[in-house]
């Protein structure tokens, strides 16, 4: 850690020398300022974020200011920065900006406006997909790391199968059966709770219900192993192709197929953190498990998770572009960068901007996320911190 650029902090009469009292976030910020590539990544990310929000505002709604779906067949494949031919267009067909900043596509739609709309789509796909993946990852990883040594007992399995059956009955609209089973379940849970509160074991004939089966950790980690056996892009492609095309399906599927890394990660962090003294102290004070997990352990484990989330957003955006390219992406009324690129590939020699503009923009944004994420990884890495 460089000390020459930081002021020394003195307290009181100036006799007591204290170490620099920087908060971890201020330290991180300080290191980030020194890492040029990460800083550039952050800047591009912020610009992209603002552009995406502007894009949502100006292209959304019933009567948008800039209409991405406006077709002008007589103006197709105009190069970037060309002016519209005012004599052939009706008044409402004129581009609101008065110029085709990035040209038009094969239907005469304004590529600039479509790119603006696509920015928001790419952003949401990236963030929602990674949000789902990180959410599942933190939940399962936390469970596995913190409660990993507990066993799943037969009555747990019984409880969940009852819940699933109730859901099944409700789904098939057999409400009476569902209500009956629900009552049984709730009574059983309440009875078990009362036994637990008096520290009583299950009565003799029912003791087999408490038989331990699997450990929580084993269950979750085997699930991760199973998921890792699927070739991820192929799996996403299969599911997307089988489900009706929709932008939400794509987000959810990318999210549901990419939580394994975060899970392993969070589990490892929890396994090491739960053995530390501050957790033991918190437990000794009688703090609830939930509070220990979310207030004491999580803040210490979150930094690397955020790093992998940043990198995950980059790869989710690439996946979305790849899916759109293969024709399984976001369905037509929405423009996405992948769609624009894949529509433009037929005109690659006549209208190269249709390929190059979205391609370069995807490249820059994904690069920004990668640079920022990797930069933050270096910054959070204590081994590298010492050398800086």
């Amino acid at each position, binding site marked *: 850690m460089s000390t020459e650029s930081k002021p020394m902090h003195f307290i009181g009469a100036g006799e007591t020398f204290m170490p620099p009292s920087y908060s971890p976030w201020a330290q991180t910020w300080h290191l980030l300022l020194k890492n040029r*590539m990460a800083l550039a990544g952050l800047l591009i990310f912020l610009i992209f974020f603002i552009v995406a929000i502007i894009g949502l505002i100006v292209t959304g709604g019933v009567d948008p200011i800039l209409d991405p779906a406006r077709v002008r067949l007589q103006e197709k494949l105009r190069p970037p920065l060309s002016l519209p031919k005012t004599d052939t267009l009706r008044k409402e067909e004129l581009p609101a900006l008065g110029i085709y900043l990035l040209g038009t596509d094969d239907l005469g739609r304004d590529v600039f406006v479509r790119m603006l709309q696509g920015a928001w789509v790419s952003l949401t796909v990236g963030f929602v997909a990674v949000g789902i993946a990180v959410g599942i990852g933190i939940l399962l990883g936390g469970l596995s790391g913190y409660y990993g040594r507990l066993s799943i007992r037969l009555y747990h399995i019984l409880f969940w199968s009852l819940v699933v059956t109730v859901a099944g009955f409700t789904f098939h609209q057999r409400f009476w059966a569902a209500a009956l089973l629900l009552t049984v379940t709730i009574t059983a849970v309440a009875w078990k709770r009362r036994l637990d509160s008096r520290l009583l074991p299950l009565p003799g004939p029912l003791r087999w219900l408490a038989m331990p089966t699997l450990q929580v950790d084993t269950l979750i980690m*085997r699930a991760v*192993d*199973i998921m*890792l*056996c*699927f*070739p991820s*892009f*192929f*799996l996403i*492609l*299969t*599911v997307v*192709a*089988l*489900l*009706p095309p929709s932008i939400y399906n794509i987000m959810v599927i990318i999210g549901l197929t990419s939580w394994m890394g975060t899970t392993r990660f969070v589990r490892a962090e929890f396994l090491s953190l739960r053995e530390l003294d501050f957790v033991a102290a918190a437990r000794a004070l009688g703090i609830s498990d939930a509070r220990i997990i979310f207030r004491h352990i999580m803040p210490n484990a979150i930094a690397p998770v955020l790093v992998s989330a940043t990198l995950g957003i*980059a790869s989710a955006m*690439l996946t979305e*572009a*790849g899916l759109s*390219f*293969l024709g399984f992406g976001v369905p037509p009324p929405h423009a996405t960068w*992948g769609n624009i*690129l*894949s529509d433009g*590939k037929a005109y*690659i*020699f006549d209208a*190269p901007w249709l*390929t190059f503009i*979205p*391609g370069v923009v*995807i*490249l820059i944004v*994904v*690069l920004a*996320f*990668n*640079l920022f994420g*990797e930069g933050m990884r270096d910054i959070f890495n204590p081994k590298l911190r010492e050398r800086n």
Partner: protein
Amino acid sequence: MLAFFGRSVIQKIVTLFFVSVVSFLIIHLAPGEPSQIDPLNPKFTPEMVERMRKEFNLDKPLHIQYLLFYRNLFNGRIVSWRDNLPVLGKIWERFLNSLPLFIVGTLLTWTISFPVGIRSAIQRDGIYDKSTTFLSYLLISIPGFFFAYILIIFVVTKLHVPVIGMETFGVTASSPLVRIMDRTWHLVLPSILGATGGVAVLSRYVRGQMLEIIGQDYVRTARAKGLSSETVYYKHALRNALLPFVTMFGLILPGLIGGSVIIESIFSWPGMGRMAYEAILGRDYPVILTINFLTAVLVLAGTLVSDLLYMVVDPRIKI
């Protein structure tokens, strides 16, 4: 050692079983059925659909379908729903097409990323390190199909070489030399594209590994003894830095059957990835499930191989 082997084989078979169940469920519980793929076709009368469902066992309960499917898979009698050809034969044929891509791509990846990674670790924070770092981020971030188009435009307009497909149409009539050159040219671009991501990731990994080893005490000792930097880097540091990469030999196994869908689509390469893509489009369940199953087998075999290799090369690891 033997106990470890046995235990992990059993564990992997259990995992494989669950993979087969999950993939079967994903495919069969998703909305839509192969018999409904073309509802507007007048030839698809209800009787016809019924006959198809019967033929493909789609009218049986799900667990029976599962058993029938995997029994056929292990007997090797499984056939594609599209053309009634044996699936394993089809896969083998496509596999032979994808194999050259895989071999050349892997060779490129491993021969490029090691020198690059080692050099940027030795010259840490130098110009070379910074530029290769940036370049590798660039290569990770570029959408594969976009990069493919840039390369195609360059090769087609500047070098005037045809690159789409496995060979130029009608080239079979010319001399062997011309044919070999033609095949090679067609192989170059897809393999380079297949290798880019790998080179970028692997060279960063090599660099990180080298950096960690260079910081160790025994490297400092070697340097303090007055050994030349050649000896220090290539004899003392590199040998230890290589350890984790031995295990990666196991992890490239799944790539054998993976084949990139996107690259093979762009280059009209009749390989595995393209076949999987066509199977997905046609709802050819046997092909999709078989590819999935084989991939899972290779992934699991790969991890097993890498565990074993690690034990062989690193005497510190004992079970």
